[in-house]
C-alpha cells in the first residue's frame, strides 16, 4: 500500500473513532445543559416572583397600616379637637412613636382650608387652600386617596395619604405626608445582587422611587414600560442593549406598579458557570478521545505497515522460491527434450566417424573435411550438452552434503583461485573476515561454487582497475553468518536488479555466460537454509549479501524473511 493510502486509512479510522465517541458526548453535554438551564430558569423566575410578591405584600401592608392609622385618628376625634394644633401635635407624636413614616399631618375642611398642620413645613403650608388640588377632589369623591410623588407647595418630592372623615355635621379631610424614604427602603430591599433593581412607577410610567442606577423620582422610568401591567408579569426584555429579567406587579391601590429587574448574567452566573464546566468537560473529553484516537490509529498504522512490510518481504521470497521451482521444472523439461535429440546427433556423428575410420574411406579426397566437420559437430553437441547439464544442475534437487564449514577458509580458497586473474586486471581484493566466525553446518563445495560465481561476476563487472571487498560477520542474535561481497563496478540498473537470479538472465555477450550462475547460486543458498540478496547503486557498485544459518539447514528460507 502506498504511503498516502495508509494516511487516508489512518485518517478514516481516527475520524470514525472520534465521531462515534464525540457525538454521544456532545449530545449528553447539550441535553444536560438544556435540562439544567430550563430548571435553573424556572427556579430563577420563581425566586424573582417570590421576591416581587414579598415586596408587594410589604408595600400593601405599609399603605394599609398608614391608612388605618389615619382612619383611626380621624374617627376617634372630632373636627374641633383636630383643628386644635396642640391636640393634633400630640396625636402626631403618638403616631410618630410607632412609626417614622409620617412627615406631617394636616386637617382640611370641606372647602379646602388648611385648618391645622403639624410638621416641618408649617410656614409654607399654613393657610394654603387645597380646594382646587386634584387630590382634594379625589379624596372627596372616593374617601381615601394615595397620591403619586409630587412636588406640591413645599417643592419637595413627596406623596400624601388623605382620608375623608364623614362627621355628623360636616365632612373633613385628614391628610398626611409620607416619608418617601420609607417607601424607598421597602423597595430597595428588593435590589438584590450587584445589578438587581427595584422601583415603583405610576400608571404614566413616572418613577415613584429612585431606581438603583438610572433615573430620578418623578422622571420617566428607564427600561421597558410596565405602567399598564394589570397582573403579575415576568419577562426577559431588552433594556439598554442588554436583556434583563423583569417582574412587574401592580400594588393594591392599582395606581402603582412595582418593577423588579435583574441582570440575567448575574442571576444566571451559576448557570453560566455550569455552561463553562459542561463546555470544558466536553472539550476535554473531545481532546482525550481525539488524542487516544490519533495515538491508537498511529500505533495501529505502524503495526500495519510493519506487518505489511514483513508480508511483502515474505511474499517476495515466496515468489522468488516458487519462480525458481517453476523455472526449475521447465528447465528440466527442456533439458530432457533437447538431450534426446542431442544424443541422437552425437550417436549419428559417432557412427559416421566410425565409418570414416574404416579403410575403404581412407583414400577419399574429402576425408579431412569429413573428419573436421564431424569433430565440429561433436564439439557443438558437447557445448549444448554442457548447457543442458548445467540446466539440470540448476533444476536438480540434490541434497547438499552437510559438513563443518569454515566460511573464512572457503572464501580464502575461492579468492586464491581468482587471485592471478584479479592481479592481472589490477583488481584489488580486500578481505575483512570476522575472526570469531563460528564453524557452520553447510556444504563446502556448493558454497565454493556460489562464492566463485559471485566473485567472477564481480571481476567481470569491474573489468579493469577496481576493488572487491569481502566481509564476514557473525550475527549472534539470530545465530546467522553474513557474507558480503561488494565490488565498485558500474552497478546493476534497477530494472535488471529483480531479474538477476532468474535462469538464463545474463548481461554478458552470447557464448560468454549461460545466465545460470546466479540462479544456481540462489538455489544452492536456499537449499542450505539461507538467503542471498543483492543491492546495487549505479556507478557505485554492487553488493551481494549471503546469510547462512550456523546450525543444520533444516529451516527453510522463509524463516529468514524477517531478517
Amino acid at each position, binding site marked *: 500500500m502506498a504511503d498516502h493510502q495508509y494516511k487516508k486509512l489512518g485518517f478514516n479510522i481516527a475520524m470514525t473513532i472520534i465521531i462515534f465517541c464525540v457525538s454521544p458526548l456532545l449530545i449528553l453535554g447539550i441535553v444536560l445543559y438544556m435540562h439544567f438551564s430550563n430548571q435553573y430558569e424556572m427556579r430563577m423566575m420563581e425566586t424573582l416572583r417570590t421576591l416581587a410578591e414579598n415586596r408587594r405584600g410589604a408595600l400593601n401592608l405599609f399603605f394599609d397600616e398608614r391608612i388605618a392609622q389615619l382612619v383611626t385618628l380621624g374617627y376617634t376625634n372630632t373636627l374641633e379637637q383636630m383643628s386644635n394644633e396642640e391636640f393634633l401635635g400630640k396625636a402626631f407624636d403618638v403616631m410618630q412613636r410607632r412609626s417614622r413614616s409620617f412627615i406631617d399631618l394636616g386637617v382640611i375642611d370641606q372647602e379646602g382650608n388648611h385648618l391645622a398642620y403639624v410638621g416641618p413645613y408649617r410656614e409654607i403650608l399654613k393657610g394654603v387652600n387645597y380646594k382646587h388640588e386634584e387630590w382634594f377632589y379625589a379624596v372627596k369623591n372616593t374617601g381615601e386617596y394615595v397620591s403619586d410623588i409630587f412636588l406640591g407647595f413645599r417643592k419637595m418630592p413627596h406623596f400624601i395619604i388623605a382620608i375623608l372623615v364623614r362627621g355628623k355635621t360636616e365632612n373633613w379631610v385628614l391628610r398626611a405626608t409620607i416619608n418617601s424614604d420609607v417607601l424607598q427602603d421597602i423597595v430597595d430591599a428588593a435590589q438584590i445582587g450587584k445589578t438587581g433593581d427595584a422601583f415603583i412607577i405610576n400608571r404614566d410610567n413616572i418613577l415613584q422611587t429612585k431606581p438603583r442606577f438610572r433615573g430620578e423620582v418623578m422622571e420617566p422610568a428607564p427600561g421597558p414600560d410596565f405602567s399598564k401591567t394589570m397582573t403579575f408579569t415576568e419577562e426577559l426584555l431588552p433594556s439598554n442593549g442588554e436583556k434583563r429579567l423583569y417582574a412587574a406587579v401592580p400594588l393594591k391601590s392599582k395606581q402603582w406598579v412595582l418593577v423588579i429587574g435583574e441582570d440575567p448574567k448575574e442571576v444566571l452566573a451559576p448557570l453560566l458557570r455550569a455552561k463553562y464546566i459542561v463546555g470544558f468537560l466536553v472539550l476535554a473529553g473531545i481532546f482525550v478521545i481525539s488524542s487516544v484516537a490519533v495515538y491508537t490509529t498511529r500505533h495501529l498504522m505502524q503495526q500495519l505497515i510493519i506487518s505489511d512490510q514483513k508480508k511483502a518481504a515474505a511474499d517476495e521470497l515466496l515468489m522468488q522460491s516458487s519462480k525458481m521451482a517453476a523455472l526449475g521444472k521447465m528447465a*528440466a523439461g527442456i533439458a530432457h527434450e533437447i538431450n534426446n535429440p*542431442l*544424443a541422437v546427433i552425437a*550417436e549419428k556423428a559417432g*557412427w559416421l566417424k*566410425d565409418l570414416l575410420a574404416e579403410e575403404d574411406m581412407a583414400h577419399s579426397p574429402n576425408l579431412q573435411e569429413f573428419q573436421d566437420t564431424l569433430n565440429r559437430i561433436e564439439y557443438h553437441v558437447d557445448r549444448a550438452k554442457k548447457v543442458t547439464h548445467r540446466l*539440470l*544442475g540448476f533444476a536438480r534437487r*540434490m541434497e547438499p552434503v552437510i559438513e563443518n564449514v569454515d566460511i573464512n577458509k572457503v572464501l580464502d580458497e575461492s579468492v586464491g583461485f581468482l587471485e592471478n586473474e584479479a592481479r592481472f586486471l589490477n583488481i584489488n581484493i580486500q578481505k575483512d573476515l570476522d575472526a570469531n566466525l563460528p564453524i557452520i553446518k553447510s556444504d563446502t563445495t556448493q558454497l565454493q561454487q556460489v562464492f566463485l560465481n559471485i566473485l567472477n561476476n564481480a571481476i567481470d563487472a569491474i573489468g579493469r582497475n577496481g576493488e572487491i571487498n569481502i566481509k564476514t560477520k557473525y550475527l549472534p542474535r539470530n545465530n546467522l553468518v553474513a557474507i558480503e561481497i561488494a565490488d565498485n563496478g558500474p552497478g546493476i540498473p534497477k530494472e535488471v536488479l529483480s531479474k538477476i537470479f532468474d535462469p538464463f538472465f545474463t548481461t554478458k555477450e552470447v557464448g560468454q555466460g549461460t545466465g545460470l550462475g546466479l540462479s544456481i547460486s540462489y538455489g544452492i543458498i536456499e537449499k542450505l537454509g539461507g538467503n542471498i540478496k543483492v543491492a546495487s547503486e549505479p556507478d557505485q557498485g554492487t553488493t551481494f549479501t549471503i546469510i547462512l544459518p550456523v546450525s543444520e539447514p533444516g529451516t527453510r528460507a522463509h524463516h529468514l524473511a524477517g531478517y
Partner: protein
Amino acid sequence: MDNFKVLLVDDEDDFRETLQKRLRNRKLQVEGAENGYKALEMLQSQDFDVVILDVKMPGMDGIQTLQEIKIKKPEVEVIMLTGHASVESGIQGMQLGAFDYVMKPVPLDELLDKMRQAYERKTMRASHGG
C-alpha cells in the same frame, strides 16, 4: 574381447539403431528393443549379460521394466540411461538393483566402460554365487 551380450532398450529409433550399429561395429553382440514389453520378451527368449535401459519410455517406463527384469532375470546387469535431471530416478534405479546410470548424450567410450564394469560384476557374482 568384449564377448558379452547387450540388450539396448530405447523408444528413440534413431538413437537405438545408431548406437546398436556402433556397438556392433565394436564387435559386441547387441540387440535392440523399442519398449519394455519387447525387452522382457527378448530377455525371456535369449540370454543377455547387460541391459541398457532408457528411463523415460511410453507405456512401461524404465523403472517398471527394471523391476520386472530384476524379478525375472536378477543376474542381468542393468545400466540406466536418463535424458534429464532425474537423479532421483537414477538413484531409485540403483536402489532397485541397477548397476549404474548415465546421462544422455553419453560419449560412447564412457558407455563402453560402464558396460564392461557391469559385465565384470556379473561374472564375479556368477562365480561367487556359483
